[in-house]
């Protein structure tokens, strides 16, 4: 017995002497919710960190204490910037003026400025992040048009008290919008190193538009775009001087051609025809995401709009469900909106003919009718194929355009066809010798899209509108 007691005492003593090296109280730490990286002016990097301010979030102290700030009204986050040579050193430098040790394990998002991404140095920082225990491998990677600092400063959510929640919900919204994508650190990093796929990141930006005087926000349906709301600042132009131009800075003239709809030959832009920062809208939060940033290795080579994001998701089989606007095939000038969902993974095949990749993609989607503006009776089983046909054609065109840009414009296999091409080789060495990524630009595509409309919504049969006939239909 004495022995047991002695051993116990010894253990307790050991623990006591050793102390609790790693124990950190919850309130001794400052939780970083988002990190932004810009090119620094005095140093390599300008690191922006968004910190959670617990007092405001916790609703101010415990029960009967009077001192606490009245629930929820206060600032929920605070932003600091540090110019530092590396990301890690910036943490050290920040702790010179912050009372609490910075803790990164709750960081939801890492934002890189477009400049940084295009310079290709992003790899240097990613390698640090992936090695760190604190950064989550599931942290969202975002490329921001303009400065990352400005973007983070613009995130002042009003619906959510907690910016972390805002980020989590926003960056998973691609599941029901299809206009952005999932880009997590681990995937991005692996794609960066992979010889069969190139990385992509979510595109973010700070919205510069002010609503045109005439059109109040509310029912901005299809007609409102005529007001030329496609006003937007060129993110990368105003990026350098981000600070003073935040929160609706200098108003610029509306430029409808900012939407990518024009180049696709659409009279009016669809929901996917915008890139982040140029969505015509108002709202408290100025930051927004739409579209994707295309990388070649670690260097950003271009950006694509929301529609490309949809196509990217469809081709990869990551598309969940989203509303998608189609031009009405029978009544021009009106739209049909379908709730599109991808029920099965796309069939992707790669052949190498004459040393050139030939890629086949077969995509099958289901759709429910959401809106038929014209009232044309597409619900009729005889008419339905017309709509399906039109949707297929439009989708196919979009996807072909999207894939064409990846080969022609970016030379970047972001959809990971290389992963499939690997199956053509027996060993890694053979595969490596083929140098897929260099040959991807010569790839040709054979895209097949199948749209099956399954449900009509709450209306089974559309009846045309009756009128006096005094005025013609628009």
């Amino acid at each position, binding site marked *: 017995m004495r022995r047991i007691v002695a051993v116990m005492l010894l253990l307790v003593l050991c623990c006591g002497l050793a102390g609790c*090296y790693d124990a950190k109280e919850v309130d001794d730490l400052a939780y970083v919710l988002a990190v932004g990286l810009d090119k620094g002016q005095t140093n390599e990097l300008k690191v922006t960190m968004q910190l959670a301010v617990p007092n405001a979030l916790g609703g101010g102290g415990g029960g009967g204490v009077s001192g606490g700030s009245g629930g929820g009204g206060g600032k929920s986050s605070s932003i600091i910037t540090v110019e530092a040579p590396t990301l890690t050193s910036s943490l050290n430098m920040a702790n010179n003026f912050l009372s609490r040790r910075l803790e990164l394990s709750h960081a939801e998002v890492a934002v890189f400025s477009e400049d940084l991404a295009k310079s290709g140095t992003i790899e240097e920082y990613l390698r640090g992040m992936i090695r760190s*225990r604190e950064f989550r491998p599931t942290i969202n990677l975002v490329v921001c048009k303009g400065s990352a600092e400005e973007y983070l400063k613009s995130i002042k959510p009003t619906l959510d008290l907690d910016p972390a*929640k805002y980020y989590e919900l926003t960056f998973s919204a691609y599941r029901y919008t299809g206009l952005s994508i999932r880009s997590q650190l681990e995937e991005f990093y692996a794609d960066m190193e*992979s010889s069969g796929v190139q990385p992509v990141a979510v595109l973010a930006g700070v919205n510069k538009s002010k609503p045109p005087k005439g059109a109040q926000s509310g029912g901005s349906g299809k007609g409102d775009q005529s007001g030329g709301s496609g006003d937007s600042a060129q993110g990368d132009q105003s990026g350098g001087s981000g600070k003073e131009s935040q929160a609706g800075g200098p108003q610029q003239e509306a430029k409808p051609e900012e939407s990518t709809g024009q180049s696709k030959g659409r009279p009016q832009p669809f929901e996917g025809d915008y890139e982040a920062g140029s969505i015509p809208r108002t709202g408290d939060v100025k930051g927004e995401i739409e579209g994707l940033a295309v990388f070649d290795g670690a260097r950003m080579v271009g950006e694509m709009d929301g529609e490309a994001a949809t196509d990217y998701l469809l081709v990869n089989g990551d598309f969940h469900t989203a509303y998608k606007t189609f031009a009405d095939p029978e009544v021009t000038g009106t739209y049909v909106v379908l709730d599109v969902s991808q029920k099965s993974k796309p069939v992707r095949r790669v052949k190498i003919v004459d040393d050139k990749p030939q890629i086949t993609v077969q995509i099958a989607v289901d759709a429910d009718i959401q809106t038929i503006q014209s009232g044309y009776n597409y619900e009729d089983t005889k008419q339905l194929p017309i709509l399906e046909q039109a949707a297929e054609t439009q989708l196919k065109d979009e996807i072909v355009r999207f894939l064409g840009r990846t080969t022609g414009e970016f030379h970047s296999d972001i959809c990971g066809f290389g992963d499939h091409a*690997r*199956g053509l080789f*027996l*060993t*890694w060495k053979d595969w490596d010798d083929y140098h897929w990524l260099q040959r991807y630009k010569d790839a040709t595509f054979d895209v097949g899209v199948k749209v099956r409309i399954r449900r009509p919504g709450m209306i089974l049969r559309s009846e045309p509108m009756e009128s006096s006939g005094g005025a013609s239909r628009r």
Partner: protein
Amino acid sequence: MGAITGMASDITFGGWEAVALIINAICARIFLNFPREVAEDAGTAGWLETVYFSILAFLLFYIIARLYARFNRKDILDIAGLAGGETGRIIGGLLLLGLILFAGALILREYTENMKIISLTDSPLGFVMMFFAVAMVAACFLGLEPIVRFIAVSVPIITAGLLFIVLMVAPYYDPTHLLPALGNGFYGIFGKGFFKLSTYSPLVYLFLIPPFLKDQKSFRRIGYTALGASALLLLISSLAYSLVYSYPTSLENFLPVFQLARLINYGRFFQRLESVFVLTFAISAMQYLGVILFFAVHVFKKTFRLEYHRPIILPFAVIMFSLAFVPSNLMTAIDLETKTYMTFAWSITFILPIIILLLARLRAAPGPLGAHPGGSPPTGGHLPESSPQGASATYRRRRSKGGGAL
């Protein structure tokens, strides 16, 4: 079950306990380096390599089990004694001891380092190692019986934890990561893969436990079951790992399964669960280290015919503790394990027993061993003995009623 039917003073345990012990010992490496190692050898075809060397291990074990059939209730040291007398036993014992201590020290170091990197970044190495050392010594003092019983309970739980991780990362699976099908080519898979046989080197413990086993007939069955279950777990882990991580990146991760666990992400609440992994990881480590220390002490005791094993527990723990500090950094330790240990461990596990068994068979061929198949062997006098017929009959009956405990 063994203990109930067993003798008052024996350490005895049943088949399931023995199987769990071997599974835990082999599969402890899943948590360390294993999935990354096979990726390093075979590239995208790590799972193929796992299948290959598992089949090899099965074949070798088949040979050993056939040779073993005549030596009931004897462990490899007894048989070495039969084969080479005192010298034979001492040589065999020292070789085994060397293997066990080498593995033990490395594993102690690696577990500690991993723990330090995962969760206790600011603590000194010795402090973290102390937790493992305390567990190991305590386990050893309590004896093999509690260890195996604990393992019998914990192994299913730990396995469930591993499978949970594997299932939860399913959204990240990408079958194309297994392409090209042959990875780094034949040499990578089948050449380098041969040395991965050392993954099964904890099978030595199986050759040391026959005296503790309740049912002698079960030796072979325990071996196959443990090998099969371990092979399955190794396969699952390497497959899951290479499904998630594409090839060049899969070489980078330090703790493969932990990295998988970090990816788990279901909704806003159900994420960042990898710390729970620390629990299963640490418990699996502690019980494995307890087993290692016990067998190191046991082999030493048996080799030099000591009467008690308790007085040498602490010295051996200190030796292991000190050896664990020898590598100056984690990279060296991992190199020692994946390069040095892996190249020789298989020979002690598989070749040494075969040699010993062959020698013993040659020397004892006309001897009395064959005369008493399944009977009480004359040389096992100092070993606890019970009626084989009665015991095994009982065992079988209870086993069958137990309904598929294996």
